[in-house]
């Protein structure tokens, strides 16, 4: 319902307040390696402030199973020593946590001003046309997800696309289709990487 005299409240569309609880998913526990990582990370914070490690703990879950389920949230809660609600509170707030399966390659196209001025809207269009999806969707083979994201902080190399944790800079709309083919062929090698970082590879 709307409290505004002029405008409706988009009743037909999904609204944040109607967000469903995360699906339970399968039983979850860290691999030995991730458990060790978590135990190391939590030492960075005072011993009575374990909750500070919650973002790191969730990244580990996501790394291990690709997305975050209700069961894994409960697992994180026991690790941290907080309630599952507190974990879900965090998961539902931050955009980099996925509560549904995503593709092997998540194409995060920056859509904010500097990138948009250099054609980011067209990049999204071309990528979606090539993959046959809408923004936010995953291809049926589970390979690619296209997501529009807000400013990635690489405005001088616009338009920029973040693929999982890697960057690809200056992706012109005309190259978008070829870029997808290139990823299929060469995987991570297809990304330019951050121009400041490349030297170190």
């Amino acid at each position, binding site marked *: 319902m709307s409290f505004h005299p002029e405008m409706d409240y*988009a009743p037909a569309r999904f609204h*944040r307040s109607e967000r469903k609880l995360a699906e339970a998913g399968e039983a979850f526990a860290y691999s030995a390696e991730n458990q060790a990582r978590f135990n190391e990370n939590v030492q*960075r914070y005072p011993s009575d402030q374990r909750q*500070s490690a919650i*973002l790191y703990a969730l990244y580990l879950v996501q790394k291990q199973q690709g997305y975050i389920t209700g069961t894994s949230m409960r697992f994180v809660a026991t690790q941290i020593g907080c309630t599952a609600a507190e974990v879900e509170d965090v998961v539902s*707030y931050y955009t980099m946590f996925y509560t549904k399966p995503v593709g092997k390659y998540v194409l995060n196209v920056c859509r904010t*001003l500097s990138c948009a001025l250099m054609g980011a809207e067209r990049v999204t269009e071309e990528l979606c046309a090539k993959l046959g999806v809408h923004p936010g969707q995953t291809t049926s083979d589970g390979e690619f997800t296209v997501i529009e994201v807000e400013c990635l902080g*690489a405005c001088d190399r616009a338009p920029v696309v973040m693929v999982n944790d890697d960057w690809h800079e200056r992706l012109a709309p005309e190259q978008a289709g070829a870029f997808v083919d290139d990823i299929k062929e060469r995987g991570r090698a297809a990304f330019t990487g951050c121009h400041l970082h490349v030297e*170190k590879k």
Partner: protein
Amino acid sequence: MAFEPVLTNHVREPNSFTLDFYQKNARGYEGLRKALTLKPNDIIEQVKASGLRGRGGAGFPTGLKWQFVLKDTPKPKYIACNADESEPGTFKDHVLMERNPHLLIEGCAIGCYAIGAKVAYIYIRGEFYHVQETLERAIDEAYRAGFLGKNILGSGFDCDVYMHRGAGAYEAGEETALIESLEGKRAQPRIKPPFPAVAGLYQCPTAVNNVETLCNVPPIVLNGPEWFSALGPEKNGGPKLYCISGHVKRPGVYEASMHTTLRELIYGDQYAQGMLNGRKFKAIIPGGSSVPILLDKDLDTPASFDHIQKAGSLLGSAGLIVMDESVCMVWLAMNLLHFYRHESCGKCTPCREGGDWLYKLLQRVERGEGRTKDIDLLYGVASNIVGKTLCAFGDAAATPVLTTLNLFRHEFEAHVKEGRCTLPAEWRAKQPLTAGAH
């Protein structure tokens, strides 16, 4: 006298991020060595005398911020370094962290010594994963060389620096929201006062400083406050990093003194080298997306905190977004309101709901479905957000609407009158965007 870069003079050289390079070429950790021979309070006095102003956006004097950190308390104190850099148009800290990470680590250590903290957390945005790798490697190097850890350089001073990775939230760049996020909660701002200097991280005294701010501290300690303040106009001393993006030939990060005018930054040979594709300049956002727009007539303003403010805008984070004549100002406001609507943390109603209304109104006008009274409604909704939220986000969200309405009201009217976008540039989406996906 030509300006000699201070923070970025070596960033384009190979291996500039290694400890070895930093010590050989940039007097690495000499600032820390010198600082440890001084009294903590003397360092604060030096930073105050230098006039160093926070580089994150607000331009608050750093020395004062450190002075306000509560001294007589049994609680531990903290430095929280704000490396969330998510203001659209800003990418300066990225260069510093990626190519000159030891300067930041040295700045953190000196800052900790000055305010009596033993731990600094560098809160880095989740999207900067590759930057985090660089910083963590640099932190390891610093520990091994004895510049971090216990009893640094035999002074008895202990200092730890840790990375903390965010997970995609613009609001985490606000200092109290950053603290909340560090505590493992949603990044939502707190009511101030108490300010972080009194009750910040874990309710302990905390100084929240931007990356570039902390990077300026070692040179101040080494070269003295007079040297620093002489680099720029009065009260705007020191080197400044400018991020230039948008329709220019050579976008990038440029270090300059704050005497440099906006026109020099856009057209200067050593800076952005003029407009792209020979098109005409239309407007510039001089300080990241949340500040008012300036026009061609304002371009001879020196890009300092005070001069830009006098010209009717803010230097903010020094993210200069340059736009040419192909940019429709209704589209611009819509693009930015999509950002603010998505990034609003949802704590204060005016910002959460108002941002959504503004975006929908702008979308309606941009699509040519707007009515004349929508323009006044935009103005009304935006004005009712300003000053009515806990943090500056609300003002930031209303600004793109108010500034475009003030300067380009005729474009809004033309959209309504003609029932279509009057400036559909070829670089924009072919189909109207399916908004509201988030």
